[in-house]
């Protein structure tokens, strides 16, 4: 135990850097998934025939084992951050698209009708009624995506993207338990912390409704 703390202290700057890298990768991928996924989810509520197909494709991607998906990225994008972000983005997409779709679909029809009946345009209806009311559900999707991504980001070290996984894999190959823990503990704490933080935001948003 004391050994671990000493190791941790000695490598603090490296661990901090890798944690930052880890957060960066996750944030980029989730951010991209929000920018693409939320409008896509909204679009599917307007063209419901497409929804089964798009959500189907997204869940197929979700089903591919993460290591395999990362493997597919290497011939396409080489190694480094780029293939990692693409793979993470694909993983983050489904929960966000699906939750946006169900969230907007779940807005009470009487409220939609009230909005239309009062003379809202389609766009006003979307940003004044549908999106605010769907926000807690969309937030839940973002939370799921983030937590999944923090986990998969640890694997991204295998294709040279950095992050806390680097310490874990290096530790495994060197049979160094302290090094493994130096990567595993911050990664676990990061996932728990983000889950808590986004969970609180979600709660705050749904209270208003």
């Amino acid at each position, binding site marked *: 135990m004391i050994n671990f703390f000493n190791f941790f202290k000695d490598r603090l700057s490296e661990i901090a850097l890798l944690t930052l890298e880890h957060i960066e990768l996750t944030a980029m991928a989730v951010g991209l998934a929000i920018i693409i996924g939320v409008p896509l989810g909204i679009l599917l509520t307007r063209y419901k025939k497409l929804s089964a197909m798009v959500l189907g494709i997204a869940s197929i991607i979700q089903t591919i084992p993460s290591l395999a998906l990362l493997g597919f990225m290497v011939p396409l994008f080489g190694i480094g951050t780029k293939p990692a972000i693409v793979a993470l983005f694909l993983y983050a997409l489904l929960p966000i698209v699906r939750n946006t779709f169900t969230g907007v679909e779940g807005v009470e029809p009487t409220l939609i009708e009230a909005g239309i*009946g009062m003379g809202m*345009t389609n766009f006003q209806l979307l940003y004044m009624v549908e999106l605010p009311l769907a926000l807690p559900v969309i937030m839940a999707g973002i939370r799921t995506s983030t937590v999944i991504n923090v986990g998969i980001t640890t694997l991204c070290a295998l294709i040279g993207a950095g992050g806390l996984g680097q310490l874990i894999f290096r530790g495994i190959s060197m049979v160094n338990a302290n090094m493994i823990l130096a990567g595993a503990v911050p990664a676990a704490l990061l996932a728990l912390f983000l889950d808590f933080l986004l969970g609180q935001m979600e709660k705050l948003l749904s209270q208003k409704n």
Partner: protein
Amino acid sequence: MIEFINVSKIYPDGHQAVKDISFTVKEGEIFVLIGPSGCGKTTTLKIINRLIEPTSGRILIQEMDINNYNPIVLRRNIGYVIQEIGLFPHLTVGENIGLVPHLKKWTKTDKKKRISDLLKMIGLEPDIFINKYPMQLSGGQKQRIGVARALAADPQIVLMDEPFGALDPITKEQLQDEFLKLQRKLQKTVVFVTHDIMEAIKLGDRLAIMRNGTTVQIDSPVNIINNSADDFVRRFLGEHRFQTDGNTIRMEKTITK
């Protein structure tokens, strides 16, 4: 003011909700559409603000076909109170009431003054209620705000779809009285949907009794009671015994249950 000319509505599944109805709603009157559920009264109401497009026939508002109005503009100029109130849960009382003025791009000061005037008019202290959320209100308060919201941009026409349906009998009666008092002052043209004959007779200047998508009888409450068009109307009035005395109606509830 509002004129229906041979209006029908057939849904894609073949169900004919409204069958060739014609009537005229006069300026400043409360016109009640009443009938059992599924008789087409709500469909008829929603045709007026173009939430539902009729299959055939014409509807005129101030002698102009409603198809000549931009639907968005038309709706902003018609007050609408819906079943189950339909207040937006994520907006405050003030924001709910000020919604149509907001859509019509009123200035902030105009909006604020209007909201506060309306809250006073419905007997709710503006300072206390303006920043509350709908879930913090009682059923009666919500319904009052629903009415205030419909009146916010001072529309000439107000559509009301069973606005008092979900209230307990005492609150309901209270709100009906308030509404009548308000109407005497404001003189709006009101189209009011209900399935409650007591409410129809109490509020309506004229009633259109509907069955299976057609109007069975359109007349003042007194005339409908004294000269019921057919057995259906008599049966519809039936649960209650009404007595007319000149222009006033007295009612005795028969206890048959």
